[in-house]
C-alpha cells in the first residue's frame, strides 16, 4: 500500500518521470495515429473497390456462360442476395480523339441492374451539384456552372443508361469511362476534376489543339477481340462509341483502366449474343437438305452469354466471414442451376465464385503488409521510450537510495521495494498511454483540418489526393486498436521500470541508509 502512496506523491512532485510520461504519450499517440489512418485507408480501399464489382462474382472468363438470366432470377430469390447483374469482362483497345491509344479493361453492363449491385450511379462524376465540394473554395468545379450544348442532368442520365444523343438526334449506345482513362481531366486538390485541353502531335512536328469535353462531344474507337464458337480468336471488331459520362470509383487503378459499355454492345462485338450461327462440328454427320457443302458445318441456335454475374448481398458484407457466407449461398444457387443445365453451363466445381476480397487479394495484402511494416517501425521507435523510462528510473532509484533504506529499516521487503518502482512505472504508463490515446484521438478526428492547415501554412501536402486517390484522410479510431495500444504502452513502461526496480530490490539496506 505504501507503494501507491509514494507513487502518487512521486507522480506530482517529480519532473523527470513526467518527461518519461511525455515520451509514452508521443509513442502511443504516434502508433495509434498510424494504425488508424492505415487501417482506414484499407477500409476505404476495400469499400471503394466494392463500389464497382459488388460483393461476390460468379465468373467464367472469355467463353462466358448461357442462361444467365435464369441464374440471376434464382439468385434474386435467395434471401442473402439483394441483387444480381450480368456483366461481360474483356480487354480492349481504345483510340482517343487526340490519337492516343490505350489498352483498357472493358466491362459490358446493363445500366440499371449494374447500379443495383454496385454503387455505380454514385460514381458518375459529371452531374449537377448545388454546393461546391469541401475543398473547392474558389468554386472552380465546372459542375457548378452551366454547360453549353447540354445539361448536367442530361449527362448524368446518359451515364445511368449508357447512351448519348447522336448528331441525328437519335439515342445511341455509349461508353462510360474511368475519369482518368482519357487524361483529358485534371484532378484538383479538392478531389474534383477540370477538363483540360489536349494536344495532338502532327507528323510535321506541330501540335493540333483538341478542345472537347468527352461526355458532350467525345468519341472513342473501341476494338475488341471476339472468339468464335469453338473458342478461337477471330479478327478484331471495332466500333465508334460516344462517351456518355465518366466515373470515379476512388481507386486509381480502376479509374485509369476501366471502361463500361452497354451489355448488348459487348455481346454483339464479342459474338456472345443470341444468334443463329454456322459452326464447324467435326462429329456432325451430313444431314439431308441442310444446304451446306461441308459436312462438318451446321447451323445452330446459340443463346446469349456473359462472363460474369455480379452479386450484392442483402446486408452489408464488409467483414470477411459475411462475404464468405454470401459466397456459399451463391454457390448453392449455382449448383442447382448447373444441375438443371448440365452440359450447357460450367459445372459448379469449374466455375469461379469469388468474394471481392478474394479477387483483390494481392492489392489488399499489399496494404496490410505495409501497415504491419509501419507498425513494426514505429514500435521499434517506441523502444526508445522504454529505454528512456529505464534511464530516468535508474537515476531516480539512485536519488531515492536513502528512502529505500528507510523503507527497508521499517520492515519493507526487497520485493516490496521493487514493487514500488514497478507500480510507479505502471502509473507512468497508465497516465502516458491515456493521454496518448486522447492525443491520438484528437489528431485522427481532426486529421483533415490539421492536414489542410499544414498545407496552407507551410505548403506541406503529405496526403496528396493525386497520389492516394482518396480526397480525405481516414479519421476513425477503432476502440479495439486503442485498447491494444493502451495495453502495449502500459506494458512497455512497466518493462522499462523492471530493471531499476531490480536494482532497488538488490540494494543492501545498510548501504542504502549510509548513502550520501
Amino acid at each position: 500500500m505504501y507503494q501507491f502512496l509514494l507513487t502518487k506523491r512521486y507522480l506530482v512532485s517529480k519532473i523527470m518521470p513526467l518527461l518519461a510520461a511525455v515520451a509514452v504519450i508521443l509513442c502511443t499517440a504516434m502508433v495509434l495515429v498510424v494504425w488508424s489512418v492505415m487501417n482506414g485507408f484499407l477500409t476505404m480501399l476495400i469499400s471503394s473497390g466494392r463500389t464497382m464489382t459488388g460483393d461476390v462474382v460468379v465468373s467464367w472468363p472469355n467463353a462466358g456462360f448461357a442462361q444467365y438470366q435464369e441464374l440471376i432470377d434464382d439468385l434474386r430469390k435467395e434471401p442473402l442476395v439483394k441483387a444480381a447483374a450480368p456483366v461481360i469482362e474483356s480487354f480492349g483497345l481504345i483510340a482517343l480523339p487526340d490519337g492516343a491509344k490505350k489498352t483498357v479493361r472493358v466491362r459490358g453492363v446493363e445500366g440499371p441492374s449494374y447500379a443495383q449491385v454496385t454503387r455505380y450511379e454514385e460514381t458518375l462524376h459529371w452531374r449537377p451539384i448545388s454546393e461546391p465540394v469541401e475543398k473547392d473554395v474558389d468554386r472552380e468545379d465546372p459542375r457548378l456552372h452551366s454547360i453549353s450544348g447540354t445539361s448536367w442532368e442530361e449527362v448524368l442520365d446518359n451515364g445511368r443508361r449508357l447512351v448519348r444523343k447522336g448528331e441525328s438526334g437519335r439515342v445511341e449506345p455509349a461508353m462510360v469511362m474511368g475519369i482518368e482513362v482519357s487524361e483529358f481531366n485534371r484532378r484538383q486538390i479538392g478531389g474534383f476534376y477540370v477538363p483540360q485541353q489536349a494536344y495532338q502531335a502532327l507528323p510535321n512536328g506541330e501540335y493540333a489543339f483538341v478542345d472537347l469535353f468527352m461526355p458532350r462531344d467525345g468519341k472513342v474507337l473501341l476494338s475488341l477481340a471476339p472468339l468464335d464458337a469453338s473458342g478461337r480468336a477471330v479478327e478484331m471488331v471495332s466500333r465508334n462509341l460516344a462517351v456518355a459520362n465518366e466515373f470515379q470509383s476512388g481507386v486509381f487503378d480502376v479509374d485509369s483502366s476501366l471502361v463500361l459499355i452497354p451489355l448488348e454492345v459487348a455481346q454483339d462485338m464479342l459474338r456472345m449474343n443470341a444468334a443463329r450461327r454456322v459452326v464447324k462440328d467435326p462429329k456432325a454427320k451430313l444431314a439431308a437438305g441442310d444446304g451446306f457443302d461441308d459436312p462438318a458445318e451446321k447451323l445452330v441456335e446459340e443463346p446469349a452469354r456473359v462472363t460474369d454475374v455480379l452479386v450484392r448481398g442483402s446486408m452489408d458484407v464488409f467483414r470477411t466471414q459475411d462475404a464468405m457466407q454470401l459466397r456459399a449461398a451463391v454457390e448453392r444457387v449455382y449448383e442447382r442451376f448447373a444441375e438443371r443445365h448440365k452440359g450447357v453451363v460450367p459445372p459448379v466445381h469449374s466455375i469461379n465464385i469469388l468474394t471481392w476480397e478474394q479477387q483483390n487479394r494481392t492489392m489488399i495484402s499489399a496494404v496490410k503488409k505495409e501497415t504491419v511494416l509501419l507498425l513494426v517501425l514505429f514500435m521499434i521507435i517506441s523502444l526508445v521510450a522504454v529505454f528512456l523510462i529505464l534511464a530516468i528510473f535508474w537515476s531516480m532509484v539512485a536519488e531515492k537510495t536513502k528512502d529505500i533504506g528507510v523503507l527497508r529499516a521499517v520492515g519493507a521487503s526487497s520485493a516490496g521495494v521493487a514493487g514500488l518502482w514497478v507500480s510507479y512505472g505502471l502509473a507512468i504508463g497508465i497516465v502516458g498511454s491515456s493521454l496518448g490515446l486522447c492525443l491520438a484521438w484528437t489528431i485522427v478526428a481532426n486529421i483533415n483540418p490539421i492536414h489542410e492547415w499544414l498545407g496552407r501554412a507551410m505548403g506541406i501536402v503529405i496526403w496528396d489526393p493525386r497520389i492516394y486517390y482518396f480526397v480525405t484522410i481516414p479519421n476513425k479510431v477503432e476502440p479495439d486498436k486503442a485498447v491494444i495500444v493502451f495495453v502495449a504502452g502500459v506494458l512497455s513502461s512497466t518493462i522499462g521500470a523492471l530493471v531499476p526496480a531490480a536494482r532497488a530490490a538488490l540494494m543492501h539496506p545498510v548501504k542504502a541508509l549510509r548513502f550520501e
Partner: protein
Amino acid sequence: MNDGPASSANPAALRETASDACLRVENLHKTYALGRVKVPVLRGVDLSVAEGGFTAILGASGSGKSTLLHLMGGLDRPDRPASGVSSIRYKGRELAGASRSTLDAYRARETGFVFQFYHLLPELSVMENILVASMVRWGLAWPAHRGAATRAAEELVEHVGLSHRKRHRPAELSGGERQRVAIARSLINEPTLLLADEPTGNLDQKTGETILEMLLSIRAARRLTMVVVTHDERTAARADRVVRLVDGRVAKA
C-alpha cells in the same frame, strides 16, 4: 554495577542474566572489505540486553556502534566467525541465520529505528511519514487497519507535540521537530525494541535533552527495551547500563 555479564568466565552470572535478557548477541563479527584491504570492525561482540532496560552503547567514532545496532535491528547479517558460531537472539528467536522474510517481519513488528539524521521521506507529510511504517507492516491488509493506525498516529503526533504540523513536509520542520516525527514513526507499529543511533547527535543541547526526555518517558510508558548509541556521556548517565565498544569488542568495565 551490572555491566559485565558477557564474560563466559562466569557461567552462573550468564545463566542468571540470560533468564531476563530479551536480546542476546554472541560472538558477532563484521569485517568490511575496502578493495583488497579488510577492515575488521566487530571482532566477537557479546552482549545481552535486559527486557525493558535502557542500554547505552558508547565508543569512539568508527568503533562499530552503528554496525552493531544494524545487526541487532536485523538490517544486516553478521559474518561467519572463524571459530564458534555467532548468534543474535531476540526473545528466544535466532536472527543470525534467519530467512529474509523473518528479518523483514522482525523489523516491521518488533523494532523501531531512530536515526541521527531523522531519515524522513521528503515527499510525505508528517502524518504520512508516520503512517508509511504501518502501511509497510500491514501490506495489502492495510485498509483494514487504516482507522486504528490513523488514530494511533494522531495520538503519537499529539504526544510528540506536533498536532499543528500534521500536513507539513519534513523540509518545513526544524531538526528537533523532524526527530520527533521519526520517533513517532518508530512507535507506530508498537515495537518492543527501540533502537536509536545517536538520536540527539545532530541537535543542540537543549533540544537534545527534550528528545531524550521524550524517549525516556515513552520507554517508561510502553515498557520498551531501548538501545541507544551515543557519544554523549550525559545520555549514557541516564542509562541502566553502559556498554563500551573498544577494538571491536565490548570492553570490560
